[in-house]
C-alpha cells in the first residue's frame, strides 16, 4: 500500500478477487485493497488462507513426451478395463474396484472414469485412432483423440472441418483441448471419409490448412493483437481518464477494411503467419498426420458423452469454420431458429 511495485499478475486472476480477499504473491500473503485501471493495490494480509496466483495465459500445449506417457498409463489400464467390460458383471463395478492397486494414486483416483470411458466407448490407445460420434439437441458431434496438444488440435480440427465442408458447404463449430477435438455440425457425419484416411491425409497439408484458416475466424481474431501492436487500436492506458474516442474502431472493422481495400497488406500477412506458427503448430500437425496415416480408425457411435468427450462438449471457447455463402447461411439459420432448434 506504500506505492512500491511488486510485479504483475494476470488480469483474469485478479479480476476474480474481491477487495479483502487474500492471495499469495512474491512469497507473501497479500490482501486486495482495490483493483482499478489495471493496477491492483494490496496490503499485507493477516489471514493465512490465501488463493495462489495463477497465470493461465501462458498455457502450454501438451508435449508429445507427456502424451506418450499418458498413452502408456492408459495402456496399462486398458487390459484390465477391457476384461472388466467384456466379462459378465455380477454386481456394481465400483464395489469390486477392478483397477485398485494398479499404478499411482492419481491413476487410482480416475479409475472409475477410465472404466466409464471403456464401457461407453473405448480407451484411446497409441496404435489406433479413436473417433466417437454422437447426436444431441445441439446437432451432430464427432470427437477425435490424437493426443497432439491443443494448438495442433486446433489446426487439425480446422483442417478436417475444411476438408469436410469443401464438397458440401457447411458450418462447423470446433472445440479443442490437449487430448482431442470436437466438430459439431448441423448434418450427420458420414464415417467413410474418417475411416478411409482421406480426411487425415498429409497430402496438400499446407494449401488446405491455409484455406482452412481463411475460412475460419482465426485470422480476424489474431488481427486484434497485430492491430494493437501496429498502433491501429488506440487503447486507454492505465490511469488515463479518457482515450481518443474519435479514433476508436474495432479490430474486426479494421480487419474488414483491410481485407476489402488492401488484401495484400502486410499486417494481414503478419496475422496469418502468426496464426500458422503460434496457434496451430503446423510442424506438429504434419508429424501427427504422418503418424496417423495408415493407423486403423475406431469410429464408435456413442449414446451419451464419454469422460473424454464431455469436456469438449461443454467447452465454450469455440472456433467456427464456414464455407457457406452469407445469404444461404443466414437463410439456413433463420429456418433453423423458426423450427425452434
Amino acid at each position, binding site marked *: 500500500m506504500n506505492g512500491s511495485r511488486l510485479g504483475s499478475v494476470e488480469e483474469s486472476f485478479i479480476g476474480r478477487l474481491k477487495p479483502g480477499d487474500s492471495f499469495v504473491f512474491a512469497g507473501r500473503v497479500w490482501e486486495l485493497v482495490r483493483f482499478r485501471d489495471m493496477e491492483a493495490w494490496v496490503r499485507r494480509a493477516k489471514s493465512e488462507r490465501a488463493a495462489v496466483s495463477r497465470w493461465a495465459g501462458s498455457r502450454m500445449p501438451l508435449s508429445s513426451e507427456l502424451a506418450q506417457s499418458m498413452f502408456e498409463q492408459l495402456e496399462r489400464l486398458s487390459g484390465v478395463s477391457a476384461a472388466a467390460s467384456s466379462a459378465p458383471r455380477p454386481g456394481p463395478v465400483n464395489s469390486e474396484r477392478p483397477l485398485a492397486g494398479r499404478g499411482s494414486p492419481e491413476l487410482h483416483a480416475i479409475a472409475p472414469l477410465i472404466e466409464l470411458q471403456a464401457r461407453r466407448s473405448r480407451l484411446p490407445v497409441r496404435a489406433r485412432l479413436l473417433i466417437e460420434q454422437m447426436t444431441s439437441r*445441439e*446437432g451432430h458431434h464427432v470427437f477425435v483423440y490424437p493426443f497432439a496438444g491443443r494448438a495442433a488440435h486446433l489446426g487439425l480440427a480446422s483442417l478436417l472441418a475444411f476438408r469436410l465442408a469443401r464438397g458440401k458447404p457447411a*458450418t*462447423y*463449430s470446433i472445440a479443442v483441448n490437449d487430448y482431442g477435438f470436437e466438430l*459439431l*455440425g*448441423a448434418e450427420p457425419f458420414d464415417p467413410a471419409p474418417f475411416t478411409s484416411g482421406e480426411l487425415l491425409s498429409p497430402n496438400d497439408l499446407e494449401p488446405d490448412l491455409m484455406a482452412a484458416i481463411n475460412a475460419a475466424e482465426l485470422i480476424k481474431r489474431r488481427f486484434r493483437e497485430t492491430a494493437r501492436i501496429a*498502433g*491501429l487500436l*488506440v487503447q486507454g492506458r492505465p490511469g488515463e481518464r479518457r482515450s*481518443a474516442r*474519435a*479514433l476508436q*474502431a*474495432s479490430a474486426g*472493422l*479494421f480487419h474488414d*477494411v*483491410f481485407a*476489402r*481495400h*488492401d488484401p495484400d*497488406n502486410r499486417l494481414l500477412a503478419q496475422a496469418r503467419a502468426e496464426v500458422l506458427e503460434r496457434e496451430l503448430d503446423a510442424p506438429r500437425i504434419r508429424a501427427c498426420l504422418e503418424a496417423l496415416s495408415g493407423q486403423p480408425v475406431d469410429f464408435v457411435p456413442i449414446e451419451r458423452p464419454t469422460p473424454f468427450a464431455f469436456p469438449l462438449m461443454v467447452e465454450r471457447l469455440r472456433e*467456427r469454420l*464456414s464455407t457457406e455463402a*452469407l*445469404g444461404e*447461411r*443466414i*437463410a*439456413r*439459420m*433463420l429456418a*433453423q*431458429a*423458426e423450427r*425452434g*432448434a
Partner: protein
Amino acid sequence: MRLALASGELELLPEHAVLEPATRSLLVADLHLGKGLSFRAQGLNVPAGSTALTLERLARLLDQHQPAALFILGDLLHDARARHPAVLERLSAWRHAYPDLEVSLLTGNHDRKAGVLPESCGVRAAGTELSLGAWTLRHDDGDEAYGFTIAGHVHPTVRIAAGVDALVRPCFWLRERSLVIPAFGAMTGGWRVRPTGAERVFISTGRAVVDATQAALGPLARRASAHRPS
C-alpha cells in the same frame, strides 16, 4: 421487404436503406464519409477506398430505385478532418450525376463536428427533425414525443444464433415508436441490440431483407416465448 406499420408502408432494402413508397423517398443513415481519411490524418494507416465505395453503393441504389428525394439521416461526414477537399470533391461529383434529385441531411452528432457543407455539395441542411408524411425523420430516435420516427445513429447490429452457428449482422431495429436503420457507410462499426418485448429485427441476406427476430432471441428465449400464451 415491405413493412406495414400504423403510419403507412415502408420498404426495407437489402442494401441497408429504406424506401418510402408514398413520397418515393430513399432513406439512408450514417455514411461516415472520409472516416478512413480522418484516421490517416491522425496517423493510423488504414487503406483508402471506403468513401468511394460508399458513394458507389449509393449511386447504384439511386439508379435502381429512381427516387424523387434522398434523405440522409445524419452523419454524412465523419468529422472535421473528413471535410477535406478530396472527400468534398467526390461528394459533389456524385451529387452532379443526379441533378434532379433532392438531397436533404438531418443533422447528426458527427455533422456538427464536421461543420457546414459547402454549397457545391448540393445537400440541403434539414435541421434535426423533419416530417415526411406521417413519419418523423431524425438522426437518433430520441424522446417519445415525436410521431413514429425513422432514425439511424446507433448503427444497430444483432447476434443471431441457430444450432451450432452464430453471426453478428447489421440490422433494422423496429421498436414501438421508431425504426432504427443500419449504417450505410462502408467503414462503420456497430452497436449490438437485443430485441425485447414486441421489438423486431430484420437483416439483409444480400438479396432480400428477412425477419430475424426468432434467431436473435436465442434458444432459451425462443423456448420461453413458445410456451407463453399469446
